């Protein structure tokens, strides 16, 4: 099977600092894949390695079946990489840049380009240097989508954008994925976008792949439970396996419960017994992210 992205024992070191360590990951075609992790975890390094901007220290990473080191310029007709850090020629106008791109892409769709400009409310006469952050993000997205690639990689595309721009971009991405069946791999800190977009998520922390699950299964494996009862009971509950304390005081306790099967959840409910009040809610990605990143910080006991 030809994966959209396949990393095998991928490692990348910058001098003594290890940015990626033995990452094994395979993203199936047509998947919308989210890379999550704290700052400096190695998400950008992974994406840059995938498109050949960085050379792996060891291991390999392939995109669309082509090893990243062997990517040729023509391969980027099928691959799009969008990053906020990417330079845009500020002196040019939007129309000029699109003409420039049209001269290079073999699968450039001029009609679709105009449709995207209209959708993103961009004018060909706009000077790129004068565009806002959101405007530039929309322009990057328009260029990436116009040639309808098989794989889109995005690095922190949604950070710092207002909700309207984010919604515009996400709607366009979802439409593209549905229409063309392209694969999307994006790194983000915006959990709401991840939950809305991603079929599958991977957590990277300190260069290591901590978890790689479908979004649905990941969310199903965690619950936020709030218990009120005697102090002894709360103390006992906080020591159960899979319990990660979020907040509480002598009268109540809120924690993230990680479980492999529904039986474990039922067992916990049984242990807490009838002397307490138990409230079980689905966990959000933000809470799971904090847990996986090892950044749980119990709220101050009141």
């Amino acid at each position, binding site marked *: 099977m030809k994966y959209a992205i396949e990393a095998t024992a991928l490692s990348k070191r910058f001098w003594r600092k290890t940015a990626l360590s033995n990452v094994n990951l395979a993203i199936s075609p047509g998947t919308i894949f989210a890379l999550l992790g704290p700052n400096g975890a190695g998400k950008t390094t992974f994406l840059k390695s995938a498109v050949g901007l960085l050379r792996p220290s060891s291991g390999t990473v392939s995109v669309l079946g082509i090893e990243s080191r062997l990517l040729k310029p023509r391969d980027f007709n099928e691959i799009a*990489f969008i990053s906020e850090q990417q330079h845009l020629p500020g002196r040019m106008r939007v129309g000029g840049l699109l003409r420039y791109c049209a*001269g290079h892409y073999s699968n450039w769709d001029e009609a679709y380009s105009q449709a995207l400009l209209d959708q993103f409310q961009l004018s060909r006469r706009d000077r790129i240097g004068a565009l806002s952050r959101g405007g530039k993000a929309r322009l990057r997205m328009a260029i990436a989508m116009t040639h309808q690639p098989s794989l889109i990689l995005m690095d922190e595309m949604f950070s710092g954008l207002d909700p309207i721009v984010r919604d515009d971009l996400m709607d366009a991405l979802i439409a593209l994925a549905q229409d063309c069946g392209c694969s999307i791999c994006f790194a983000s800190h915006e959990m709401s976008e991840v939950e809305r977009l991603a079929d599958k998520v991977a957590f990277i922390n300190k260069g290591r792949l901590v978890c790689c699950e479908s979004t649905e299964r990941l969310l199903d494996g965690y619950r936020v439970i709030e218990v009120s009862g005697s102090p002894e009971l709360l103390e006992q509950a906080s020591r159960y396996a899979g319990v990660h304390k979020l907040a509480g005081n002598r009268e109540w306790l809120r924690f993230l419960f990680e479980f492999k099967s529904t039986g474990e959840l039922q067992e916990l409910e049984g242990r807490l017994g009838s002397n307490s009040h138990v409230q079980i809610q689905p966990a959000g990605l933000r809470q799971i992210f904090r847990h996986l990143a090892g950044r749980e910080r119990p709220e101050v006991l009141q």
Partner: protein
Amino acid sequence: MKAIIAQMRKDLFTLWPLVVLWWLVLIAATASTVQVFIRTDELTDTYTSSVWPLLTGLVCLFSAVIFFTQDAGLDSRAFWRVRPISGFGIWTSKLLLLFVVIVIPGAAAQWWLTGYTLGYDIWWATAEAAAWLLLVVFVGALAGALTGSIALSVVTLAGIYVAVWAFFSGLTAVLGSGFMTPHREWVLWMPVIVKVSIMAGLWLLYRYRSVRRTAPLIVIAALSAWYAIGPDPWWLNEFQKPRSSQYKRLLETQPEILQPPDYPISAAVRYVGDEEMPGGPVVQLLAEIQLPNISIEGLSINSTARLHYPDGIQYLGRSGIAAYRGFFSLPHNASGFAAESDINIDPLYISLAEIPARSYNDIRHELAEMELELSIRESLIFDTVDVAFSENPIEIHGKRNYKVQVTILDSNRMKVLIRINGLAYGRALSPWVFIYNPVNKEIYSPPGGGGTAGGSGQREMLFARPKGFRVQNERKFDSSGADVRPWSPSERNSLGYRKISGPVGKDWLANARIKVYLSTATKPIVHTVKLTDFRAENWKKADW
């Protein structure tokens, strides 16, 4: 090809203001240089002492760097890195565009400045300029990738280095003139090194410490530093003044640079005992140079003499002399001819200084213990042109890579145009024209001086009839043209020729011949002679 055209179109649309700026600076520099050249007849000095080389160099440098760094070079954030755009295509298109809009116009301006001399040299010059520019843009692209101070300072260093080399000297200038130019002398590299250091420092200051208010000050300081140091810095003459310890050390460490001459030099003292002379009789300190076998066309010597006192150094002064096969001119407004067949100026005396006789009498015992140091820069003549005037209105003489065109405009005016097909980079060649009339035994040399720019360029000299002949030198001539003063040792060889200035008429020119000398400087020579070696030639103590 489609990709290259797309890239060129994008660069042109993006950077057209820079291209226009480059053309404007180029046109202004060329026009300004030509205007001043017309007024002063000094192409080299005009160009190198003006601010235009700085402007053209900087604009060219920054244009080239911006051309290549605007696409962020090899930076991973570069727009083209993750597109179906090949680096080869980008670089090829940028090189093509750079060549078309920067290099070719620059070369064309240079070509125009050098008098339409469409010799092979201009193409070499273009190739060389392109090669240097390539170096800049490669470094520039690297700087775009690193965006660090080190790379940027390297760009500045390389850029200035290239600008100095490409616009003032250039390897092909050496090839064009056929001689090693003095640009390789380390004393001439000193200003370059200093300039590079200052500019690099100011660049770093500008990059990391400048705010909107201080940026113009830093730019002005940088321009001032460049201009003050200049290609021909005012302090260079001071620097070149020989200091005994420096030269001795150089002679020990780099004898190949300061190679002593093949012909021996000694010193002489001559008493000019004319009581009627203004200021009384004088004692001339002379350098006596033996020229036993001159195989060269001739030489010119600019000497600097110093007397070393036990408690310090006293600078005596400079003098110059030129001696060519069949002709030589003397310093201090005296000129003369030797026999046409040979130089016949052996020994050759150079007047170093004149000391009032009484003063010399007072210090002669001290001088006997002193040391005289000569710093001599010799120039080898590498070609001469001998043109005879006739009734023909135009006489053209072409030889090797130069052409001399003599035009008698009318009965009162004559124009001599020297064109040299070389490069206008640096000052490799110095042409000079003397017209002599064997019948009247008069020499006429045009006003002005200097040379062409690095082996190419043109000099135009206009001769016109004055209201009357004017004797140029301060010496008195009697009605027969004889100098009332005794001949100096050198003057004795002049066979009675006297130098006149001012225009000459058709009658005079009809019998005249013209000599054109194209010379290039060689290594400086330092020769130290003991005053005890002085011979008191023509000096009898009893005379005074």
